[in-house]
């Protein structure tokens, strides 16, 4: 039996944290969403909402999306949600010639990584409550 979830992320702070099915992409949030979209169309289901937290995707450089560990039939709810998230992010990326997330210094980037990690840890913590 496969792992119950897979972790799609561009957040380096998740590496070496013991996530067995971690897929790390060195890209921005919008491109990460497009990777997630491809996986959804291969039958992987969203477990977390793509737009976790309350920091806009044009502001935070980092995002982690939890998906089902195994693929099944395409889940239309997942298709709809990732589609909406991509459109939302595209609109926000167009606000400026250079999106805000590209201009952060090291300290701010580490803070964004920490927030994203905390959100995923919380999601898994709540999931554990159901066991």
């Amino acid at each position, binding site marked *: 039996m496969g792992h119950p979830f897979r972790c799609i992320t561009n957040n380096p702070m998740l590496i070496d944290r013991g996530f067995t099915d971690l897929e790390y992409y060195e890209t921005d949030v919008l491109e990460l969403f497009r990777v997630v979209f491809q996986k959804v169309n291969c039958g992987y289901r969203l477990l977390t909402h793509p737009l976790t937290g309350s920091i806009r995707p044009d502001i935070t450089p980092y995002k982690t999306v939890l998906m089902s560990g195994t693929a099944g039939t395409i889940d239309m709810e997942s298709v709809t949600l990732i589609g909406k998230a991509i459109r939302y992010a595209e609109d926000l990326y167009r606000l400026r010639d250079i999106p805000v997330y590209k201009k952060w210094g090291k300290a701010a980037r580490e803070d964004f990584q920490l927030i994203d990690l905390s*959100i995923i840890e*919380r999601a898994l913590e709540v*999931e554990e409550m159901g066991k």
Partner: protein
Amino acid sequence: MKLTLNKFHVQDIQFAEASSFCSGVLYINKAELAEYLMEDTNICSVDFDIARPGESVRIVPIKDVVQPRFKQSGSGQVFPGFVGDVETVGNGETNVLEDCAVATSGKIVAFQEGIIDMSGPGAEFNSFSKMNILVPLIYPVEGLDKHTHEATVRIAGLKTAAYMAKTTLGLEPDEKEVFEHESILEMGQKYPHLPKVVYVDMVQCQGLMHDTYVYGLNVKGILSTMIGPLEVLDGAIISGNCAAPGHKNATIHHENNPIILDLLRRHGKELCFVGVLLSNESAMLKEKKRAAYYTSSLSQLLGVDGVIVSEEGGGNPETDLMFNCRLHENKGIKTVLVTDEYCGRDGASQGLADVTPEADAVVTNGNGNQFVVLPKMERVIGDIETVRIITGGNVDSIGEDGTVSVEIAAIMGSCCEMGYEHMTTRLR
């Protein structure tokens, strides 16, 4: 249940040798207040500053805004679980400092901390600019982790607010407002012909700086539940939230929830305000569904005709908002949604990350992408450089002439999703 708010109008705050409230002036002994806050050994040092309406002052970064309150009588104490013990509140008399607030400052992660301008065009975007504000500048001990730092600053803000309002104990207020709210069975018998309305207060619980507390309990993992509106007015709900400053539900917004206040004032007249349901906003989709299913089931159990649903934050919480909308409407319960938008500088983009056809009655409290240029202020409380990293700002936000160019998302409470400020939606 009956709660009386004893309102004391604050005309000024001054530092003095003894803390007291007299003739509209709040006097604060800085040393005594600092000693009280530093009972928390995670605080290395604390300083205080004051901002008054009309001054050329900018406060940035701001984490939370809290209205000073302290119970004169009744069970428990304000901010239960933090200042007060966990005893249920919402009855007796609570003293309130009007035209006054605490704004906690000091960098935690900075990017979700906001601005208050006490004058100029920025002051038009929130009510805080018309208040006398005490700003605790809290410096943590070295090496404090961010989770503990956030909790330390949060609790210090609540303690400061309680300390300030405590000076009014035994004094005659400027005005009183009495709220009464019967038991559900009683109101059902008293108002059989009035439409039954519930307020669904959606509260965040997604991790560091995305949390909300009820009676000191983080709302993560809770099943949707009911709380009395008078309890909310007594500070039972506390913000640990890191949404964008423009639409963050700060603690002062919970204390003065305008939807609750409006419903209470109309209760027994135009409608029967049954109560408040708390519906949490988790990052997990399963939890979002569970919350919406259970909230709508509670509404159905209560036999309500309609619900007003407010959101906290933006992006994924819009999915919670639409789940709640759809599930209530499918049960024949009418919904009105209260939110804000991010629809681009021209307002032409879809402003919500999620929608549903059943959402045909939506009140929006402003566009967080609206762009403003704020003049240089003579004095800054905090650190002006943080404007470059707060939501709504960017590295180019501070001009050479000291002007600040930001989206209104950077201004505390500008698009409050409870409708606390003046931007709203009206039918033509």
